[in-house]
């Protein structure tokens, strides 16, 4: 197995092996917080940072860790990093922290993170693991933002409202198209419908490409 190129790894993280769309990991936060774009962005960013840092630490310590105790150690590392991120959010983005609530501490339970530690970081160099955390985290964050954008548009009739939660200042209503929207989109079922739609769109694009180039397989 030859090492995949830089561009291939990006393509995998964002598309072919997207943690949310393809591996279906971390669905709990994905479904719960994506009612608006800014929430998706906030949690996506937090997950990205935790994923990069946990991959880096797991990879850096991989030679000293006996296989029998690796899982408790991953949990320890991830839980500590998430606690740090939570404190940093509370200090610098208090409004966003209030809006995301319990889902910041719950990043610990995002199985995408422990999966990357186990599958990738425990077997690869630190630099390569950080890159893996970056592409996988970006793939996850982009899915969160896409679903957040979609649900906010349908459910609230607005685009990128409340960006003040990131940058401070007065409440910003974003681009308001209509007042109120289709309520279902921001209720929990709307999250499932939106994710299903995203997966369907991705599969449709893949199918179309495959039928356009029937001989070429992707690996």
């Amino acid at each position: 197995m030859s090492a995949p190129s830089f561009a291939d790894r990006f393509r995998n993280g964002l598309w072919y092996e997207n943690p949310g769309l393809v591996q279906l990991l971390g669905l709990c936060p994905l479904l719960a917080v994506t009612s608006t774009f800014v929430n998706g962005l906030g949690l996506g960013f937090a997950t990205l940072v935790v994923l990069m840092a946990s991959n880096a630490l797991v990879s850096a310590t991989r030679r000293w860790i006996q296989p029998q105790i690796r899982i408790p150690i991953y949990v320890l590392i991830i839980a500590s990093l998430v606690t740090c991120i939570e404190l940093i959010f509370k200090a610098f983005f208090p409004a966003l922290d209030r809006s995301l609530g319990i889902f910041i501490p719950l990043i610990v339970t995002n199985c995408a993170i422990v999966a990357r530690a186990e599958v990738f970081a425990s077997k690869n160099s630190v630099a390569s693991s950080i890159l893996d955390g970056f592409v996988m985290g970006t793939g996850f964050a982009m899915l969160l933002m896409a679903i957040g954008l979609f649900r906010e548009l349908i459910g609230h009739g607005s685009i990128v409202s409340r960006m003040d939660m990131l940058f401070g200042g007065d409440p910003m209503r974003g681009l308001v198209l209509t007042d109120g929207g289709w309520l279902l989109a921001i209720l929990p079922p709307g999250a499932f419908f939106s994710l299903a739609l995203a997966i369907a769109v991705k599969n449709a694009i893949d199918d179309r490409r495959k039928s356009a180039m029937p001989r070429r397989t992707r690996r």
Partner: protein
Amino acid sequence: MNSIVKGGATLAIIAALCTALVALTYTATADRIEANEQAWLERSLQPALSGLFFDSNVTESMITIPPPHNLPGTEAAIVYRVFAEGAPVAALFVVSARDGYAGPIRVLVGVDVSGLVTGVHVLEHRETPGLGDRVEPAKSDWVQQFDGRSLTDPAPAGWAIKRDGGQFDQLTGASVTPRAIVKAIRETLLYFEAHREEIFSSRQEAAE
């Protein structure tokens, strides 16, 4: 045996390092977090303070009323007292309405010394987005209908939502949330009427 000792030692070392990392971050952010909490508190008390004349530090005049009390909610209620030149002006109650649609609704109820509502603000809730959440001041002006009301205005029978024969508007498609909040405000007013003297005379406690 050897592997157990080795594994245990590795775990202990990593745990110590992780703890150090968290402790470091905590130390670096503690002051900022506290300042944020304080700013948030002051901002959220504002709706019940507008139009009042006072010269005291509101957040420092906090008292807690431990349960059992007749206020809404089962946990300790928080009261901020407002004074002008030492004389009582108003009391701001932070109480929990227990009979909302999903979990407790934290409500700030400001009452001036004569028993008039100075302002109501929903601080925290888990009501249905798009329905019950319209009690939030950012989403509708529903809470403003309580300004200036008192136990005698409307009369006790009127302290309910219109659907229950009262005088207060409900929200279309959501009556559970408004009903719970109306009830919580009324209970707060009743408590204030019965305990006005002790609320203003009780000595300030150290903030927890």
